[in-house]
C-alpha cells in the first residue's frame, strides 16, 4: 500500500514532503536530545530486522494467502515513537530506492502514512493507553492487535485521501475507500496478531527490553498538539504557494486543484464557489475538455467555442500530440541506442 509517484499531484506531493521532512528533523533532534546514543545502532539493526522479517512470509490458514510483519507498531513498542519514526523513514527510503516501492516524490506521503500514524497516533493513544504501566499477556495481545489495525487503517486512509486530492486517478473517494479499507482491516488484524506474538516472545525472553522502552517518557499531549498544528500550517502553506505559482502559468497543476474541488462534492455542490471556479477555469481555458468529463458539474458547456480558438493548449489531447508523442519516444529510444553503441565501442577500444 505504497502511494506512488504516478498518482501524485505536485501540490499534494510537496505538502507531504514538507510535513515529513519537518517531522524527520524534529524526531532526529528529539532522539539526539534524549541522548540515548545506544539507540543509534539499535535503530539501524531493528530497521534491518524489519527488512529481514518482511522477506519471510507465513501462511494464513484457510485462505491460501500469506502475510508478514508490519513495521510501525513493533518499532514503536521497542524504540519509542521518535526513534521508531526515523527507523521507518529509513526503511521506506531504502525500499523506494531499491525496490521501486512507491517512488521518491511519494516518499513523503509513504513515510507519513506508514510512520506518523502508527508511531504518533496508534502507539501513544491505543497501545500505551491499553497496556498501561503494568502490561499483562492479554493486554499486550489486545493492544497490539487494535493498535496495528488502527494504524494501518489510518495509513490506508492517508493513501486514499492523497490519491483523491491529487486527482490523477478518477476513483471517487467512496469507491476507493470501499476498495482499500476492508483489505487493510484484514491485513491490519493479521499484522497485529503477529506483532503481539513477537512482542510476547520478547517479553518472555527479554522482559527488560520492553520495560526499558516503556520507561522512556510518553508524549506530552500539549507538545504533540503544537507539533500537529505546526505541520498542518506548513502543509497548507506549501500547497497554497504551489497552487499560486501554478495559476501564474496555466498548466496541469492548478487544473488538478480545480479537479479536486470538483470532486469534493460534500463541500459545496453547484453553489457560488463551484460556479466561480468553473467561470475562472473557462476564462483561462487551459483545459477545454473539462466539460466532456463532467457534464453535470459545468452545465453551460462553453468548451466548443474555446477549444479551437487557442493554440494547442493541451498537447496530449490532439491527434498531432499523440502522433508526436510516439515519435518523440522513438527518438528518445534511438538516442539511447546510439549512446549505448558509442559507449560499447569506446569500451572495446579500451
Amino acid at each position, binding site marked *: 500500500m505504497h502511494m506512488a509517484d504516478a498518482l501524485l499531484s505536485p501540490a499534494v506531493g510537496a505538502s507531504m514532503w514538507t510535513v515529513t521532512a519537518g517531522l524527520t528533523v524534529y524526531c532526529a533532534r528529539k532522539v539526539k536530545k534524549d541522548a540515548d546514543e545506544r539507540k*543509534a545502532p539499535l535503530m539501524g539493526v531493528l530497521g534491518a530486522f524489519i527488512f529481514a522479517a518482511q522477506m*519471510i512470509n507465513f501462511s494464513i490458514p484457510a485462505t491460501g494467502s500469506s*502475510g508478514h510483519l508490519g513495521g510501525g507498531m513493533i518499532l514503536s513498542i521497542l524504540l519509542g515513537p521518535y526513534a521508531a519514526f526515523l527507523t521507518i523513514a529509513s526503511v521506506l527510503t531504502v525500499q523506494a530506492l531499491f525496490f521501486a516501492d512507491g517512488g521518491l516524490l511519494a516518499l513523503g506521503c509513504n513515510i507519513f502514512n506508514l510512520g506518523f500514524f502508527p508511531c504518533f497516533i496508534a502507539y501513544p493513544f491505543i497501545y500505551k493507553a491499553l497496556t498501561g504501566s503494568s502490561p499483562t499477556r492479554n493486554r499486550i495481545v489486545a493492544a497490539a492487535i487494535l493498535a496495528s489495525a488502527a494504524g494501518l487503517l489510518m495509513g490506508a486512509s492517508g493513501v486514499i485521501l492523497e490519491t483523491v486530492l491529487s486527482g490523477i486517478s478518477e476513483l471517487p473517494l467512496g469507491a476507493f475507500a470501499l476498495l482499500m479499507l476492508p483489505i487493510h482491516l484484514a491485513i491490519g488484524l493479521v499484522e497485529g496478531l503477529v506483532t503481539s506474538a513477537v512482542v510476547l516472545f520478547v517479553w518472555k*525472553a527479554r522482559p527488560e527490553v520492553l520495560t526499558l522502552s516503556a520507561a522512556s517518557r510518553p508524549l506530552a499531549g500539549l507538545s504533540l498538539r503544537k507539533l500537529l498544528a505546526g505541520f498542518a500550517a506548513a502543509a497548507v502553506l506549501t500547497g497554497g504557494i504551489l497552487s499560486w505559482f501554478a495559476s501564474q502559468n496555466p498548466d*496541469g497543476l492548478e487544473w488538478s486543484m480545480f479537479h479536486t474541488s470538483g470532486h469534493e462534492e460534500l463541500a459545496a455542490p453547484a453553489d457560488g464557489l463551484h460556479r466561480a471556479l468553473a467561470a475562472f477555469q473557462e476564462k483561462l481555458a487551459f483545459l477545454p475538455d473539462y466539460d466532456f468529463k463532467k457534464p453535470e458539474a459545468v452545465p453551460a458547456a462553453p468548451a466548443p467555442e474555446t477549444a479551437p480558438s487557442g493554440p494547442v493548449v*493541451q498537447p*496530449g489531447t*490532439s491527434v498531432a500530440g499523440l502522433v508526436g508523442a510516439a515519435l518523440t519516444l522513438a527518438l528518445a529510444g534511438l538516442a539511447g541506442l546510439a549512446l*549505448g553503441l558509442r559507449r*560499447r565501442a569506446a569500451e572495446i577500444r579500451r
Partner: protein
Amino acid sequence: MKGVESGLLDFSRLEMLAAGDSPVHRLDPRTKVLVTAAFLVFVVLHGKYDLAGLAPLALYPVAAMALSGLPAGYILGKLLLASPFVLLVGVWNPVLDRGILVTVGGLPISGGWISFASIVVRFALTLSAALILIATTGFDQVCRGLSRLYAPKAFVLQLLLLYRYIFVLAGEAARMVRAFRLRNLSDERPAMRTYAALLGSLLVRALDRAQRIHMAMLSRGFDGEIRMSRPMRLRLADAAWAAFWIAFFILVRRYDIPGLLGQIVIAH
C-alpha cells in the same frame, strides 16, 4: 515465498551495478541526486491528460541508462514487479472517465484511456529515475550526497547503519528459514506460531547484536558523527550534466515538441 536469498540478491545486484564505471557513475552523488529530483518534479508537473508532454522526458532515463550501461531488461523487470498497485488504481480511469478526448483515424479515445496511459508512463519514468540513481551511485554514496545536501545527520547515520545491517540480519534470517525448511519437508511457509517464534528469536539476536555493535563503536570513538574520508568534488562534468538536463527539462516544458513534430508529420 519471495525468499530472503532473492531479496538479498536484489540488493547485491544493484550494488554491483553501482560499482561499475561510466561517465554517469563518475558524476558527483550530489549532482545525480539533484538532477533526479528535478526530473521527478518536471514529470509530475504535467497534467493528467498531458501524455504527449511526458514523452520528451523519457530521454533522461533512456540516455542515462545507455550512457551508464545499465541493463534495461533488469530495470524493466523491477518496474513490472512494483507495478500492481498503480495499475490497480489507474485501471479505473478508463471505466470512470469515458468522455471522448480525441479521435485518431476514426477511433475515438476517451480521456480515461489517455490518463491511464499517462499514469503508466509517469510510473515508468519516476521509478526508473530512482533506480538509475541508486544503480549508478550506490547507497553509501547517495547517503554521502544527502548529508552534504544538509539532510539531518541522525537520519543519514540511520540510513547507513540500516543498510549495513540489512545484509547481516537478512543472512541470519536466510539461515533460519533454511533450517526451518530442512525440518519441515511438507510446509512451504511456516505457520504463524512458528513464524512468530522465528522472528522473536531473530529479534532477540538482533537486540544482542545491537548492544555488541554499540560497545564496539564506542571503543572506537563513535560520537554520533559520520566522517567520510574521501572528499567529494564537483567537476566540470557535473556542471555540464546538471545544466544540460535542467535546460532540457525547461525546454520541453516551454515548447510542445511532440505537438510540433506531430503537426509536421501530419501535414506531409
